[in-house]
């Protein structure tokens, strides 16, 4: 059976006509491949930004060599197909961590750049792209750019968050974060309402490098938006944990879940248990970076629990001014649309501006929810959420999207698209891009 190329949400199904398994960046001959072309890493983008139906996918996973690691200054250059997991195994023992990490370590460096990923420390250090020193980019006309913030700066800015549309990223140079320990000092605080979540987040951002909140989407009325505010800092004690071994995933989901498995009643039950398991107002833990940053990585292929229809993730950002009200309206709209979601994630983005033209984060509140694919009612509700977001001057995150209306996307990113379009490589495209870019 031929390998299938999927997004993490497994929706839509968009198989390429050709796959090039690239073993060496030296062998990349883009002009000889048939357009449209797109690089594919680990398929951890939720939506169709990583898919290229009936086009050519260049699978990058084997290009995973570390070309230079400056252990004194914490700068690493690696081929774009290396995963954050593989990189961490090399850099953590020497007292370095990736400057920004998404919620899974199974993403490639190329993917981290192309989607300009962010993490729980966005309020402190911005996106992944803020820490990229240099990129090698192969264009379909055969040219190769080495771009930095000052050299081919326009191509650099278009490539960070550029969804892979400016060419194929083959190497990435990134500045790392020094750490003394693998351990995180974490506090988890129970918040009884959305207001409390936001207030606690604002109060925490000053002293905590990593903050994020889990919200129970099914709670309504005065407890709408109740949740747990999590905050953490790397321990500054040199406790010898840097040499510790890494955990393999605890379990691997062997087959697709049935439709009822992640449906409204089971999700409601899960959320109640999750919120209720913490009795006290505050809970302190001293935990390893893996459960802190990557709790879901312990379960391999958890996405297939959503069954054959797959799932969607919705992530938007709205400005802080009026943001609380917007969040309320979005959550109510989803509830009215029958959307049930596992603990949604709320995070405050900071002011640090990414060099990436199409980079998603803007200062304000960002909300993220997973949901099983539903019917028209669900899609309509999400369209209404888009309207609320747009009306507030916010936007949705392309790396998570599989359904936004093209006109809505173009309106949300109108200024950015005007800058971005001339820098796209005409030989590159994706299912996402064909869906949203034109009338």
């Amino acid at each position, binding site marked *: 059976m031929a390998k299938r190329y999927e997004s993490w949400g497994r929706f839509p199904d968009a198989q390429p006509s050709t796959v090039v*398994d690239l073993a060496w960046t030296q062998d990349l001959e883009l002009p000889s491949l048939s357009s449209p072309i797109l690089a594919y890493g680990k398929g951890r983008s939720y939506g169709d930004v990583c898919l290229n139906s009936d086009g050519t996918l260049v699978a990058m996973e*084997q290009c995973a060599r570390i*070309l230079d690691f400056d252990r004194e200054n914490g700068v690493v250059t690696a081929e774009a197909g290396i995963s954050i997991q593989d990189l961490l195994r090399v850099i953590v023992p020497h007292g370095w961590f990736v400057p920004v990490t998404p919620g899974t370590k199974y993403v490639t460096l190329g993917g981290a750049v192309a989607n300009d990923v962010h993490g729980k420390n966005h309020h402190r250090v911005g996106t992944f792209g803020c820490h990229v020193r240099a990129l090698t980019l192969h264009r379909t006309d055969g040219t190769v750019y080495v771009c930095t913030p000052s050299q081919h700066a326009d191509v650099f800015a278009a490539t960070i968050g550029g969804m892979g549309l400016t060419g194929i990223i083959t190497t990435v140079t990134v500045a790392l974060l020094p750490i003394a320990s693998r351990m995180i000092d974490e506090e988890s605080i129970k918040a009884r309402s959305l207001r409390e979540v936001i207030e606690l987040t604002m109060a925490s951002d000053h002293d905590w490098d990593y903050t994020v909140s889990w919200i129970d989407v099914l709670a309504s009325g005065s407890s709408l938006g109740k949740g747990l505010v999590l905050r953490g800092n790397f321990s500054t004690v040199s406790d010898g944990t840097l040499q510790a071994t890494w955990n393999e995933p605890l379990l691997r989901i062997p087959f697709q879940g049935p439709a009822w498995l992640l449906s409204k009643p089971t999700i409601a039950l899960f959320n109640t248990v999750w919120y209720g398991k913490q009795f006290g107002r505050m809970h302190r833990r001293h935990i390893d970076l893996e459960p802190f940053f990557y709790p879901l990585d312990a379960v391999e292929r958890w996405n297939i629990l959503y069954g054959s229809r797959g799932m969607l993730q919705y992530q938007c950002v709205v400005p802080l001014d009026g943001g609380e009200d917007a969040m309320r309206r979005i959550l109510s709209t989803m509830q009215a649309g029958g959307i049930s979601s596992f603990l949604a994630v709320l995070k405050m983005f900071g002011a640090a501006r990414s060099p990436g033209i199409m980079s998603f984060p803007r200062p304000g509140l960002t909300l993220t929810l997973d949901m099983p694919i539903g019917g028209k009612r669900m899609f309509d509700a999400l369209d209404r959420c888009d309207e609320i977001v747009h009306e507030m001057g916010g936007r949705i995150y392309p790396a998570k999207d599989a359904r936004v209306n093209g006109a809505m996307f173009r309106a949300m990113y109108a200024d950015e698209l005007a800058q971005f379009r001339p820098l796209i490589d005409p030989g590159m495209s994706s299912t996402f891009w064909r869906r949203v870019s034109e009338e």
Partner: protein
Amino acid sequence: MASQTPTRIVIIGATSAIAQEVAKLYAVQGARLFCVARDESKVMAVAADLRARGAEEVAVYVADLLMRDVHANIVEQSRTFLGTIDCVIIAHGVLPDQHTLDHDVDATIASFMVNAVSVISFAHRYADVLEEQGSGTLVGISSVAGDRGRASNYAYGAAKAAVTTFFSGLNVRLRQKGVYVLTVKPGPVDTPMTRGITLPLMVPPRVVASDIVRAVARRTMVLYTPGVWRFIMALVRAIPEFIFVKLTKF
């Protein structure tokens, strides 16, 4: 007794997918590696990767391994760089398209020169070095394809059979001299060499690599990887030829 984790290692065919994974596992443990391959920019990338992952030092020798006149120099240079050699891994090879070879004698012989003759040339030379040292492990990457000739890959299989038999003989010769010989017989591995071919029980190179590292530590003589191939090939070898010819699937 010498340490069972080799720290001074020669890799012939260092850009092969299996060799890269084996080298990474030793690099993490701080090994000193002498890497030989044909393509300079690729082997330089491999060497950089091994250094970043913790190799104490990595030297690179760029050579077309078909050119037997450089083999002696490669052996000499590697001895100079490593001093005592703990482990030699001979991993280079090509998988030609048998349908093309069926009607091309020259191409068949050319593939045999790479997969058998140049491998035996290195194995012979390093066997002599290790014998003189009275220590070390010699690893040859052969294949399950060498266990029985099949219509779909008999040129490749015949070369691997030569390698397997040569290593078997070396094993008998050197066992009493403190030298360990390991013949590795991988089943189908998902590498650039097998691109476009989908085979049953195909495994990624890192699985084969960790089996090899374990086999070197345990001083295994013949490694089938994954292990199930030991049983499959025992069955395949036991089938009488007059029945085997009727099993067109093979």
